[in-house]
């Protein structure tokens, strides 16, 4: 099941000369959502500070489906698409709150990183277990 990981608004500052939200701010909002979906599987702010491990994005696929304008309210729902010993792929789906239309979908591929050695590291078993419980299909609607 996807969970709500971001609820916010498009500001005028985020819009470009085409009159809609610039692509960089879709990614910015996905980044905010990412911390919440990670938290839901145990990779909380405290875990990251104390365990010194966190998923680092190594790849991203985005489909921009609808434009967003200044003032539009947006929601992101997220889940886990795939799990390996060192890797998690997250799914994020952004909706326009007012119309409920899906405006963007994104897959973010991550590798678990040791924040001190800056190298990949195995994901803790309890995190993997929680991530498995959060698994969704790409076709989840």
């Amino acid at each position, binding site marked *: 099941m996807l969970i709500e990981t971001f*609820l*916010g608004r498009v*500001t*005028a500052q985020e819009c470009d000369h085409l009159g809609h939200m610039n692509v960089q701010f879709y990614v910015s909002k996905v980044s905010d959502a990412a*911390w*919440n979906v990670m*938290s839901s599987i145990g990779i909380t702010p405290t875990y990251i500070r104390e365990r010194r491990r966190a998923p680092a994005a190594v790849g991203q696929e985005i489909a921009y489906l609808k434009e967003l304008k200044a*003032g539009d*309210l947006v929601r992101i729902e997220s889940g886990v698409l795939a799990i390996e010993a060192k890797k998690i792929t997250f799914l994020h789906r952004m909706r326009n709150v007012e119309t409920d239309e899906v405006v963007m979908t994104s897959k973010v591929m991550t590798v678990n990183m040791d924040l001190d050695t800056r190298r990949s590291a195995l994901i803790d078993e309890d995190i993997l277990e929680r991530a498995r419980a959060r698994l969704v299909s790409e076709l989840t609607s």
Partner: protein
Amino acid sequence: MSALLVTRRGSINAWECDQWGHMNVQFYLAKASDAQAALAASLGLGPSRLRQAGQGVLTVADRILFKRELRAGDTFCVHSGVRGIAADGTLDFASRMTNTESGVEAASFETRARLVDLTSGQALGWPDDALARARELTDEHVDVPPPKPMAHAQPPVRDLDRLILSYRGSIESWECEEGGIVPPRFHIARFADCANHLFRELGLNKASMRANNLGSAALDYEIDYHRPMRVGQVVETRSGMLDAGEKVFHFFHHLIDSSSGELITSIVVAALFFDLVARKSVAMPEPVRARAERLIATSLS
């Protein structure tokens, strides 16, 4: 918080944090404005309807209590509800920002807002359907009671030239929302900068504060937005001090249109100093207090 709606959810980014290692006050206001927009949408005043009508929901007063600092990486959620509808046509909203990991309340917002025509700035009556929905949602929200009035001397509103000139500048287009009106965030960004100039008057600067492990934190804001601030305006801020208790002290800023002399926004701030290592409040250092008392006398004379 069952009677409140979720109106904002996200996380704190490193670039929203200031020299004291926590989220700067302006971003609390930015997130509260987003929450207010979501609440307006729940009244039927969604962005497309407001955009089509050339209208906006404008904040006219804010009371903000900063209860716990939020740091980069923290996740948060804002719940909001309608507190009531005033006879003058303003709506009172209550919002609570919570650290979603700890469940601890980070800030509370009591916001008074009105519907305006974005071009003229004229106040408008709420549409009947929005008013009906607001009445349905109106609740005392006893689990999140409004704060007691802020106890302080009233800031002077005349002869402002004798106060400290703590900022001078102009309003840029990138600061404005639809209709060319500046949202609360950028009022507060200026006030946050003004505080540093006020501290300079108290004999404090970044180096001396760092040397003494001294940081400052706002506890409580009382803000009156007297009139909209718009792109191209030339503005300045006059600041002064109201009182200095053992730990908590109050100061104020008036944001003024430099051309007309009209007040745009006034804020009273309750703040304290804290130990940057222990992250605990400390008493105002005595040399600072001596200067503060002189500044209070000047401000209230």
